């Protein structure tokens, strides 16, 4: 890809990669670093990466870097583990989007990642499999279980309200 194509990729994809990482990791500074790293790696391989595949390259690089950071911080005990099956919620929700974001935050990292890649970016199961290095079957199972969890969360909120 050319410098111009690289710059186009920055314009087109940086917000999306940032949204994906920020919602996964929920730390703005870390998310910024991860996105910058991903673009830096793309720049190093600017002559090798096809312009049409640069978006997948960015998501793959950013996702793997994020997983590395999460694992490292979990080992160091810096990560706040959220109970997967906790439907507890506090505060007042103004709309569905807020409820959904709250539910999303309680998914596991992998479930959250696959569901965001699916809904935000519109990737099919094969593409998600390549980005996350999961098997096709694993991707499907993670997405289905994440949807079930989100639905149950919405039901629980509606019951309370």
């Amino acid at each position, binding site marked *: 890809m050319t410098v111009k194509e690289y710059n186009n990729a920055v314009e087109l994809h940086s917000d999306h*990669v940032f949204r994906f990482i920020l919602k996964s990791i929920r730390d703005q500074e870390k998310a*910024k670093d991860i996105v910058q790293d991903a673009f830096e790696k793309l720049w190093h391989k600017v002559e090798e990466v096809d312009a049409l595949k640069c978006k997948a390259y960015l998501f793959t690089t950013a996702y793997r870097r994020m997983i590395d950071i999460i694992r490292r911080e979990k080992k160091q005990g810096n990560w706040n583990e959220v109970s997967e099956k906790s439907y507890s919620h506090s505060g007042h929700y103004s709309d569905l989007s807020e409820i959904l974001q709250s539910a999303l935050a309680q998914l596991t990292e992998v479930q959250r990642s696959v569901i965001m890649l699916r809904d935000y970016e519109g990737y099919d199961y094969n593409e998600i499999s390549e980005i996350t290095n999961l098997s096709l079957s694993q991707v499907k199972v993670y*997405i289905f279980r994440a949807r079930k969890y989100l639905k149950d969360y919405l*039901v629980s909120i509606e019951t309370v309200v």
Partner: protein
Amino acid sequence: MKINKSNYEAYFLDFVEGKLTANQQAELDLFLAVNPDLKFELDSFDEVILPKEECVDKIAKSELIRNEETGLNEMDYLLISELENTLSEEDKQSLIRLNFESSKVDKERAFYSKTKLNKDEVVLFPNKARMIKKPAKLIYFYRYAASVAAAVLALFLFNLNFPDDQYEPRKIEFANSEIEKEIPMKAAYVIFEEQKAKEPKTLKKNKPSTIIYAAQKLEKPIIPASFKEQEPVIKISEAESLAEIPAKETPKETENQRMEPNEVEKQEEKIAQVSASEEFVPLVQFAKNKFKEEVLKNKTLTETLAEELAAATNQKISFEAVKNQEGKTEQLAINIGKFSFSRKK
């Protein structure tokens, strides 16, 4: 028992369960005509009765059967597949059947449709402007780092000596003209460098330093008759602070070491030929020349180091020299990747 306001609920329950007799039904109709406000209450009793078509057995099955792949029950699996647009033909048939069997399907479907994240939600990356690359300033990060490393090394090398200066032999003059004339006889004398440590430390860079050369006779020297009785004395022209110094004493020659005149003449002739064809080279210079020839492969030290540096850092490294009319280097420039340094002599 007649129907009244205190017992009408029992009549209502019997009514919805179809247990009223004809007389009781007539009484109920009359009661509702007198109390129309209770008609609404009777209608609500219908809702607490499960419709006959909603079979308990079938509902339980659809909720208990688990999908082998996902572990979800049939309804959840089919509704998520529908949302994900991954329904097979068989799944589509199953969903149609489930629609008839359960009234919960629509409600569940509505909940699942809300689990779709809004892809139009915008989150802006704050550092976007920094990521844009300008072609004119295109420097790869790793190349940049390599250039810096190379530049540091080059600066170190650059401050050593001018490449052209490194192998120029120092000029020496001898006070005694006869010795000056005869001293190149390499066969007779070994010239060596000494007293270098006595050089004043304040000497400026690139200025000729004071080096004393001494001559020592070989074990079996060949000395012309006109020269043999004299003591060889050597003085360096620049060594103003140093007086003439005598060379080390030579051992006295014995009779059997002396050659016949004819033999001496022949040897002198040979030496003259050798002297005319070969340049006089002190030992230190000889060692430098050998090093240049064997190790540097007749390249300058700078050229060799530059090649090694280029190989190690994967950078293009080149030297440019500007020479004056006399052929001496006036300015030297070194280019490393995107960096360039120059130095005037």
